[in-house]
């Protein structure tokens, strides 16, 4: 049951160019989306998020776009830097009721930024 899908397992981008990581979801009840970045031998670290009522959130070089009708979100990194090379996980937050929430992650996309 893949409620959050990251269909590209890997992506290579030249330094200085834009990286676009895509994520699709099936559960329309997700109310919040997050992107996490993971380096080898480390845990995921929070990168950027977006509420389901917005269509764009920007933080420095990172911008997340949400298209609710298409159930699609994307993470744009511009300009890409070698230090951005990592696995990027998309996650959707599902309200379970009574103040409970659950995060569902995608399988991740490995980004390689080539110097």
């Amino acid at each position, binding site marked *: 049951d*893949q409620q*959050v899908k990251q269909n590209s397992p890997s992506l290579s981008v030249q330094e200085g160019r834009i990286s676009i990581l895509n994520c699709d979801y099936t559960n329309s009840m997700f109310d*919040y989306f*997050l992107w*996490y970045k993971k380096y080898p*031998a*480390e*845990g*995921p*670290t*929070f990168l950027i*998020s977006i*509420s389901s009522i917005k269509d764009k959130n920007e933080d420095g070089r990172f911008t997340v776009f949400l298209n609710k009708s298409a159930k699609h979100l994307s993470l744009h990194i511009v300009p890409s830097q070698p230090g951005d090379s990592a696995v990027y*996980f998309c996650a959707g*937050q599902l*309200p*379970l009721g009574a*103040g*409970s*929430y*659950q*995060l*569902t*992650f*995608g*399988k*991740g996309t490995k980004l390689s930024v080539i110097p």
Partner: protein
Amino acid sequence: EPEVTQTPSHQVTQMGQEVILRCVPISNHLYFYWYRQILGQKVEFLVSFYNNEISEKSEIFDDQFSVERPDGSNFTLKIRSTKLEDSAMYFCASRATRSSYNSPLHFGNGTRLTVT
């Protein structure tokens, strides 16, 4: 910046043995989680814990699993009788509030569990 710490970083155990994975969440956080990632697969939710009891658990978290907060700082995951398919990276996470809205999950670096 405060961190979630996990020990050990790598645990090797024989099938059928009990293992305890340890975590020290960020000190002012109230909500604690265990996730796991089987090699090549997605990060999967196991269990959430608040106020000394389990809040939610997934289908993966069966009777072989248990969690405990034995003191004011540690949060442990016990697997009573390990199976080969329990081999995975186990991540502990914590956050200050129940939702991600203003408090994203902070993850530890994980414990790689290898069951032989």
